C-alpha cells in the first residue's frame, strides 16, 4: 500500500495495522438478525434525534439561517408596514400637536383618540416620539417607527423603500455569523451523550463528502 509514496505514511501503517482485516461471519449474521428484527418491528420509522442527524453541516446551517432570515423578514415587514401605515395618518397640517403615531397593530391606532396626549398606550411602544422628543415640527419631517424621518404622502419615499430593503440586511450578518458558531449554542435539544456535558458539533466544512445519504424530511 501507499505505492505512490516513497514509503507509507504513519497513518497508512496504523490504519492497515489496526483495522480488522478479516471479519467474523457470525458477527455479521448477528447484525443482520438485529436488522431484520428492527425492520419487522417497524423501528425504522422512528424519528431522528439530534444525535442521529449527521447530515453535512451545510444542510443544517441552511436550516438555521433560513429561520433567522424569516424572522428578520417578519420583523422588518412589521416595521415597514407600520411605516407605510403612518403615511396616511400624518396629515399636512401637523404642528407641535401629537398625531396618531404608528403602533404595532393598526387597531390600537384607530381606537386611539387622535388628540390624546403623549401618554396613550399606542404611542409609548417605543416606535413613537413624544412631542418633546420630536424634532422641530417641520412639515416634511416626522419621526417614523425607526426614528428616521419619513416623507409625506405624494412624495417619493425612498426611506420606506429603504426599509423594505432593510430585511435583507439583518439576514446577512446572521448568515455569515452562524456557520462559525459552535452548533451547540443553536441546538435546542439537550445533549444525549452521557459522557459529554456539552454538545459538540461539526465545524464549518462545506466541502464535506457529497451527500448520498437519505434526507427524508426534516428532523424532528
Amino acid at each position, binding site marked *: 500500500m501507499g505505492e505512490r*509514496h*516513497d*514509503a*507509507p*505514511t*504513519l*497513518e*497508512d*501503517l*496504523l*490504519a*492497515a*495495522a*489496526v*483495522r*480488522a*482485516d478479516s*471479519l*467474523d461471519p457470525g*458477527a*455479521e449474521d*448477528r*447484525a*443482520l438478525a*438485529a*436488522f431484520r*428484527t*428492527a*425492520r419487522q418491528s417497524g423501528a*425504522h*420509522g*422512528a424519528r*431522528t434525534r439530534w*444525535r*442521529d*442527524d*449527521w*447530515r*453535512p453541516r451545510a444542510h443544517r446551517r441552511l436550516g438555521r439561517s433560513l429561520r433567522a432570515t424569516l424572522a428578520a423578514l417578519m420583523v422588518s415587514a412589521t416595521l415597514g408596514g407600520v411605516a407605510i401605515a403612518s403615511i396616511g395618518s400624518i396629515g399636512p397640517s401637523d404642528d407641535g400637536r401629537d398625531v396618531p403615531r404608528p403602533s404595532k397593530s393598526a387597531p390600537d391606532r384607530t381606537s386611539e383618540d387622535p388628540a390624546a396626549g403623549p401618554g396613550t398606550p399606542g404611542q409609548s411602544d417605543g416606535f413613537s416620539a413624544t412631542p418633546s422628543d420630536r424634532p422641530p415640527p417641520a412639515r416634511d419631517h416626522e419621526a417614523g417607527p425607526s426614528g428616521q424621518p419619513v416623507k409625506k404622502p405624494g412624495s417619493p419615499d425612498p426611506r420606506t423603500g429603504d426599509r423594505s430593503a432593510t430585511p435583507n440586511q439583518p439576514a446577512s450578518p446572521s448568515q455569515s455569523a452562524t456557520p462559525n458558531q*459552535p452548533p451547540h449554542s443553536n441546538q435546542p435539544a439537550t445533549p444525549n*451523550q*452521557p*459522557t*459529554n456535558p*456539552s*454538545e*459538540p*458539533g461539526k*465545524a464549518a*466544512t462545506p*466541502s*464535506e*463528502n*457529497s*451527500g*448520498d*445519504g*437519505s*434526507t*427524508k424530511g426534516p428532523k424532528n
Partner: protein
Amino acid sequence: MTRGADLGTNSVRTRTVLGQAGEPRRGQAADGELGVAVARAQEDDEDAFSVAYRMVQPGLLGYLRGLVGDDAEDVASDAWLEIARDLGRFRGDGAGFRGWTATIARHRALDHLRRQKTRPRPTVLEQDVLGLPGVHDTHEQALESISTEYALELVSRLPRDQAEAVLLRVVVGLDGPAAARVLGKRPGAVRTAAYRGLKTLARQLGAEGVTDDGPRTLGESG
C-alpha cells in the same frame, strides 16, 4: 502550532492528514458508496445493510480494539444491535454514518469499561512486542509495516484522548469535525490530541532500532 510536521530525515513520515482540509485522505469515493448502501438499508434492503456493515466494521473494530482491547468483538456486537435498531433514525451520508456508528460504539465501549471498572489492555506484553518481527526498519529502508499487536500496544499507551483522536481520524477515517463530535470535544482540542499522538507514535516507531540521521524538526508549539 505546526501541524503535520515532517520528522526530519527519520524514516517515518507523518503526513498532513490533520492539515487544513481536515478531510481523511482516503475513502471519499468509498464514503459515497457507503452512503448509498445506508440509504438502501434504510429502505429495508438487507444486502445493502451487509455492504454497509462490511465497510464500517473494520474501522469500528479497530477503534474498539484501541479502547477495550480483546473485548472489541463483544462490544462491537452490542453496538451493531443498536445501530441496526436505530438505523431508521439516522440522517446523513456515508461519512456521517461512520461518525454515527463510531459514537454508538464508543458509548457501548464506555459502558463496558464502567462495568469492568478497569481498562483492559491488549494482551501483548512489552517484551513480546519488542520481539515481534512486524516492524521493518533499517537505515535505508522506510518503515513498511507494523504488526497489529504492536500498533495497538503503542496506541494503548498514549493518553486516552490522544489514542481516541488518532483512532478516529486514522482508523475509522473521520474528519476533524466528526471526530470532535464523537468525542464531545472542541475540534481544536481533538486536532491537537491527534497531532500529539501521531507524533509520539512516529517517534516511537522511528526510534526502533535506528539511529537518527539528523535532528527532527518537531517545532510544535501547541
